C-alpha cells in the first residue's frame, strides 16, 4: 500500500475492475513517466483516495506494452537515476478516448440507477 501517513489503514476505495488501464493511460497523456511517478501521480491527482498497488501496476504496464498502447525506454530520472519511462502510442491515445467514453457512460448509468432507485 502506498500511504505516506503510515499507521492509518484508511478506508481507501478499491479500484473498479478495469479502471487501472484508464488511469495509467490518462496519467501518461501529459508525457512520458516512469512506474514510480505513475503511481505517485495517480495518488496525488485523486487527492490520495486512489491507491495503485505495485503488485498490479507493473504487470498492467507489461500487458499494455503487449497490446501496443505504450512504449517503454530507459532514461534518466529527475533524481539522476536510470529509470524506465513509459510513453503513450497513437494506439494508446485512441484507446484512452474510447475507455473514457465507456467509463462516462457506465458512471452516468450507475448514478442514474442510484438516484432513481
Amino acid at each position: 500500500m502506498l500511504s505516506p501517513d503510515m499507521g492509518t489503514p484508511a478506508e481507501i476505495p478499491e479500484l473498479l475492475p478495469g479502471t487501472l488501464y484508464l488511469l495509467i493511460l490518462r496519467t501518461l497523456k501529459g508525457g512520458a513517466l516512469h512506474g514510480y511517478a505513475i503511481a505517485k501521480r495517480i495518488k496525488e491527482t485523486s487527492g490520495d483516495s486512489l491507491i495503485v498497488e505495485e503488485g498490479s501496476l507493473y504487470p498492467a504496464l507489461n500487458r499494455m506494452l503487449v497490446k501496443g498502447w505504450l512504449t517503454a525506454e530507459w532514461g534518466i530520472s529527475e533524481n539522476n537515476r536510470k529509470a524506465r519511462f513509459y510513453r503513450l502510442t497513437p494506439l494508446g491515445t485512441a484507446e484512452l478516448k474510447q475507455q473514457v467514453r465507456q467509463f462516462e457512460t457506465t458512471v452516468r448509468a450507475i448514478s442514474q440507477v442510484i438516484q432513481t432507485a
Partner: protein
Amino acid sequence: MIWWQELKRRAGFVRNRDGFDESLDDEIRFHLESRVEELTGAGMPVRDARWQAQREFGPKLRVHEDSRAAWQFRWLSDLAADLGYAMRALRRNPGFALAAVLSLALGIGANTTIFSLTMEFLFSAPSCRDAASLQYVLLGGNSHSDVKELRFLRDSHAFAGVAGSNLESEANWRNGAHTERIWGASVTDNFFDVAGIPVLFGRPIHRGEQHEVVLNYGFWKGKLGGNPDIVGRRLVLDGDAYTVVGVLPADHRTLVGFGLSPDLYKTVQTPDLPLMLYVRLPKGMSHAEAYGRLQQLAGQRDRMDPQTDFKRTQGLEMRAVAGMDRLRSVSMIPFTAFFGMLMAVVGLVLLIACANVASLLLARAANRQQELAIRQAIGAGRGRIVRQLLAESLLLAGLGTAAGLILSIATTTAMNGIRFPLPVPVRLHIEPDWRLLSYSVALALACALLCGLMPALKATKRDVNTGLKTGERQTGGRARMHRLLVAGQLAVSVLLLTVGFLFLKNLMLATSMNPGFDVHHTVWAYMRLVPEKYTQKARIDEAIRSALQKLRSLPGVLSAATLRIVPFNDQQTNGTDAYLDGSAVARDISYTGNAVGPDYFKTMGIPLLAGREFLPSDTKNAPRVVILNHTLSHELFGEKNAVGHTIRLHTGPPQTVIGVAKDSKYFTMGEKDRPAMYTSYFQSDDAIVNLNFMVRSGLPPASLVKEMSAALGSVDPTAAIEVKPMEKSMALAMLPSQAGAALLGSMGMLALLLASVGLYGVLLYSVSRRLREFGLRMALGAARPAVIKLVLKDTIWMLGGGLAAGLLLAFFATPSLSLFLVPEVGAHDLTAFIFTVGVLAGIAAIASVAPVLRALRVDPAVALRYE
C-alpha cells in the same frame, strides 16, 4: 493486423527472456530506491524507510511472475503441462502407447506416401520459368504438331515465344567401341530460352545452335562418370558430333511431367519430326485472351490449307504446363482417377487406425474412471479434463505422425532410386517439402480429434458418484460405442480387402493370360541404324537380310523374322476405306496394322487358320499380298474363306489375301479381340531405320541375348542394339495392373492387419470388463457353454453387422474400379466377396478364442472378491 503486431511483440519477448527479467529487476530497484529517498526526505531513518518500502511493494516474485505472464501465451504453457502429464501417463503404460503409435504410424505412413506420389505425379511443377504463362498447345486436339504450324505461330508474333519439343527421340550414341541407344528430347533451338529451363552448370542451348546438347544429371553421373569438365566435350549421336554445353540439375522435371527423364536435350535435326508446341504468353495476357488469339490463328491456317480434312480449330486446346490446368485434359482422367482412388483408400486405412486408437483410449478411459472421477470431484472442470485427455491423443498422434513420416520418407527415397521397367526412362524426384509437412500436421490434428474427442467426452460424461465406486459397471453407452467402432472398422476393412483382392486377381489374370503368341520362347532384338548412312531403302533391306542370316545361323535359333511393330510395345491403328474384290463400293474399316517378314507367324507361334505365311519371294516385284486376322476376315468376308480374295485400300493397289491368322492381343491384355491386317515387310516403301527382329529359340531365351547382340553388331558396328527376351518386354503392358495390385493389395493387407488387431483388442477388453459378471454367473451355476454363448453373442453381432455393412459398401463402390481392371475381372466379383468375408470371419474367430478361454478360466471366488 493488430494481432499480428502483438504476436511480433510477444515473439520479441521470447527471444529476450533473460534481458526482460534483468530490466524488470532494475525497474523494481529504482522504484524502491525512489520510495526510500522520499521517505528519508520526510525524516524517516534509512533502515525503517527501506523496510517500509519493501513492505509496501509486496512480494517481488509475484510481480515478476505476473509481468512475465502478460507476455506469454497462457494456453501454450497449459498445453505444455498437459503434454508433460500425458507423456508420463504413456510411459506408465508402454504397451498401450506402442500399439496406438504403431497403428497411427502405419496409417499415416501410408497416407503421406501416397500423398507424396500424388503430388509428384499430378502436381509437381516442371523445371521452367513462370509455368503459369507457359502454355501447351494442341492443334486439332493432337498432342504433336508439324513444324510448319510452329513457324506459322511464331511468325504471327502473337506470343512472346513459340517453341517445340519431342521427348520420344532416340539416338545412337557412339561410346568408345560400342554403340548405345539413348533417349533424348529433340527441341527447337529457342526451347530453353522460351521455357526458361535452369541448368546446373554450363549453359542452355541458344538460338541458332545446331549441334549442342544439354545433359540430364542422371545420364551425366551414370554414363559419363560425373566428369566435371564435361562442358565442351563432344558426343557422337547418330554419327554427328555434338558439343556438350550444359548439365541439368538432379531434380530437373520435363514440361510433360510423370517423371519422364530423357538422357539429353538436343536440337531437332529432322524437319518432319512432330513437336509438342509450347507458347509463352506475353506479360499481362490472360488465358482467355491468348486462347482467342490462338483460335483466330488456327482458323486462318485452316483456310490457308483447305485440301486436308485436318481442322486445327476442332478440339483446339491450350493449357498451362502445371497446376490444375494440366489435370483438366482428357488424357489425364485415368491418372487423376487412379490417384484419387488411392487417396480414398489410404484415407480409409487411416480411419481404421484411428478407430483402433479410439477404442484403445476408450478402454483406457474406463480403467481410469476412478482417477478422473476424483479429479472432477475435487473441482476440475469437465473442459479442463477433456483438454487434458485430448492432449494425450494429440501426443499419440504426434508420435504416430513422426514415425509415419520417417516410414514414408524412407519409402519414397527408395522409390526415387527405382529404374522402372519402361521403354522410356522414368525417374521420380520425391522430396519432403512444406506440402508434405503441412499435410502431416493436418493429419496429426485430425487423428488427435478423431481418436481422442469421442473417448474424452464419454469418459467425462458421468455422475461423479458412480465413478468413485469400484467401477466394474459397464455403462451401456460405452459398450455400444465400442461395438459400433469395431463394426465400422470391419465394414471399411471389407471394402478395402475387396478392392485389394480385385487388383490382385487382376494381376494374376493379366500375368497368366495368353496374349495369343508365344512369349516364353521368343527374343526381341532392336537395331537402330544411323539414318545418315542409310538413306536408301535398298541399303536398309540389305542390312535386314544380312542380320536375319546371321541370327538364323546362331545355335539354338529355330527361326527369325523381321517386323515393324512389336506387340505390347508399340501399336498402329489405321482407319480407311476398303474395296473388296474389285467392287466400287467403299467399306470403312479400322484395324491394327503391322508389316512383317517371312517366318513371322512361325516365330511368334501364331497359328494360321488358312493359307500361307509371307515368303521371301513376296517382294516389291511380286503381286501385293496381305494376311488378315480372324476378326477382320470375319468382318469382311463372313464365314467364307478369305484366302484368294482381294482388298484395295483407299488409293492403293489391290492386294490378295494369302492367309488368315488366329487372333492375338496387340497392345494390352485387357483389350477385346480387334481386327488386324499384316502386310509384307519387303513390299512396303518406307525407309525406316528402326529395325525389329524376333527370334524363336530352342534354348532359354536369356542365354541367347549376348550372341544375338554380337551377331547384329557385326552387321553394322555403328548401329545401336538392344536384345531382350519377349517376356521382359511385356513390362509396359503389366505395369498398370502390377502397380495397382502392389499398392492396393498392400493397403488391403494393412487394413486387415489393423482391423484384426483392433478386433482382437476389443474382444479381449470387453471380456475383461465382464469378468465379474461371468464369475457371478458361474458361481450361480451357469454352465460353461452358456458363458461361451455370452461371449460369442457379442462377437457375432459385431461381425455380422460390420460384414453386412462392408459388403453393401463394396457392392456400390467397386463398379467405379472397372476402368482399371481387365474385362475378365468383373467389378462384382463373387470370389472377392467370399474371400473377404472368409478372411475376416476367420480372424474374428481367432480373436474370439483368447477371450473365451479367459472367460472360462475365471475363478468365481476371485471375480467376486472384487466387490
